[in-house]
């Protein structure tokens, strides 16, 4: 039987403005964890935030796990203020992670979406990988990627660091020597572009999707992702069938 795990916070660290890294002791029951999977985390003591929050695993080690979290509301603010020595109630790993494929691979991360790519990068470190990371102004986790990959490029919207502009602006140069597989995580607008790019280039793509969740385990059906289903479309569960989907499946709605 599965259960939630109460694990000790070994360390918390501020990486950038509103970005915190939380390292916890790896629960014994979490045998296999795949990059791209997430944990459903009780961010605070009872009351402050009610539902759990989905947070991707950033790095997995034998005896510890790390999460990298952006303070964006009540829940993540509470989570980022948790201290070393406290205990965190987590459920996971949940959902489907990234599927390894190809020898020449491209990782594209935008904002906090870079977090789940760290573990992926580590797993793929023997392949020919390239990593493109985009941020608004401050860059983070770049060194973590550099440990496993030489070709890490950074874009910032305001040019503070690396290329000035969106991370998708770095795609063009990759065109010359296209990858066999693309993995992406980041804001919807970025994922849309990656989807388009993969399609145009005929490169298989995996996208890590985000959707508001309640149960996180597939029971409540609030986290729907629109995907192709033959001629028609269907809603599937981001928490269960996702959060990583094949690029060709996902249907992005126009309005958004």
């Amino acid at each position, binding site marked *: 039987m599965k259960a939630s795990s109460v694990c000790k916070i070994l360390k918390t660290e501020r990486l950038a403005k509103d970005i915190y890294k939380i390292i916890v002791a790896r629960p014994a029951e979490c045998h296999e964890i795949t990059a791209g999977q997430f944990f459903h985390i009780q961010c605070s003591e009872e009351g402050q935030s*009610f539902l759990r929050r989905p947070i991707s695993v950033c790095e997995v080690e034998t005896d510890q796990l790390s999460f990298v979290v952006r303070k964006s509301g009540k829940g993540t603010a509470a989570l980022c203020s948790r201290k070393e020595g406290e205990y965190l109630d987590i459920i996971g790993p949940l959902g489907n992670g990234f599927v390894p494929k190809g020898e020449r691979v491209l990782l594209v991360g935008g904002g906090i979406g870079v977090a789940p790519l760290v573990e992926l990068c580590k797993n793929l470190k023997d392949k020919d990988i390239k990593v493109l990371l985009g941020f608004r102004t401050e860059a983070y986790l770049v060194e973590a990627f550099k440990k496993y990959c030489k070709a890490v490029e950074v874009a910032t919207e305001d040019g503070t660091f690396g290329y000035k502009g969106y991370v998708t602006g770095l795609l063009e140069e990759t065109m010359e020597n296209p990858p066999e597989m693309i993995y992406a995580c980041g804001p919807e607008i970025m994922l849309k572009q990656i989807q388009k790019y993969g399609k145009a280039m005929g490169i298989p793509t995996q996208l890590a999707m985000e959707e508001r969740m309640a149960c996180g385990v597939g029971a409540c059906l609030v986290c729907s992702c629109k995907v192709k289903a033959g001629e028609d479309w269907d809603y599937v569960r981001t928490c269960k069938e996702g959060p990583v989907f094949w690029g060709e499946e996902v249907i992005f709605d126009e309005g958004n």
Partner: protein
Amino acid sequence: MKAIDMTVDLKGLTLQNPIMVASGTFGFGREYGEYIDLNHLGGIMVKGLTLEARKGNPVPRVAETPMGMLNSVGLQNPGVEAFIQEELPYLSQFSTRVIANINGNTMEEYCKIAERLSDTGVDALELNISCPNVKEGGVAFGRDPEMVYKVTKCVREHTNKYLIVKLSPNVRDIREIGQAAEEGGADCISLINTLIGMAIDIEQQKPILARGIGGFSGPAIKPVALRMVYEVAQTVGIPIIGMGGISSAQDAIEFLLAGASAIAIGTANFINPLVTMEINEGIQGYLERKGYTSVRDIIGKLKA
């Protein structure tokens, strides 16, 4: 020490214990079946079923509120036929009651679903006359005593299954609705379904839910649910399944004292997948401590 007798009798349906799970919060059991032994539940109310498959509402479908949440799933489900073929065999393995939550846009649809389920292994039907997330209809049924009477009677005539009618709290007087269900031939009343709520994203200046409004559940609504269970228990003669915000043994005991013969846990599963087991233990602990030998000893025993 003698074990506590946890069986409850819903007059026509016995449960091995009074702890059920609420429709729409537990899928068809598979997901939480990985966390708890479904054999230990009193009953499972499955995700709301419709005649045909439904895709449900656009996202976002969920918003958090103070000690509660809004949902706007919109009855996404594979349809009654797929339920019978693909989900019921799985659920039937367990020694727990399986209750089919049924939903229609018209009186005829309710009756058709009820009829279709009559020869299957489900232990009971739960008539959801109150889902606030279906646009085409449904709401009207649950808010008007006359309609509640009619739809209950109609379904009653189309099935011999144990019939539970689930009430909407978005009414003027829950007692008259409960009474109408009883008069229509319900064997049991379950309540409450979700209140209706809204939440707004002030940065984008639009509702958080794609559909604007949604069903409001969780601990926040418990005081309303408890009051309504109490009121209906004072009014009808048939058993009651209480729900709405239950997340601890203390909450569950409050509902039992107020007159519920069984209780259902919904939103609390999302926070703690093991909550049903903990509540079962907690109720037993309370009964032992107070010197009771059966959970039935506290049902409806609230002092004035």
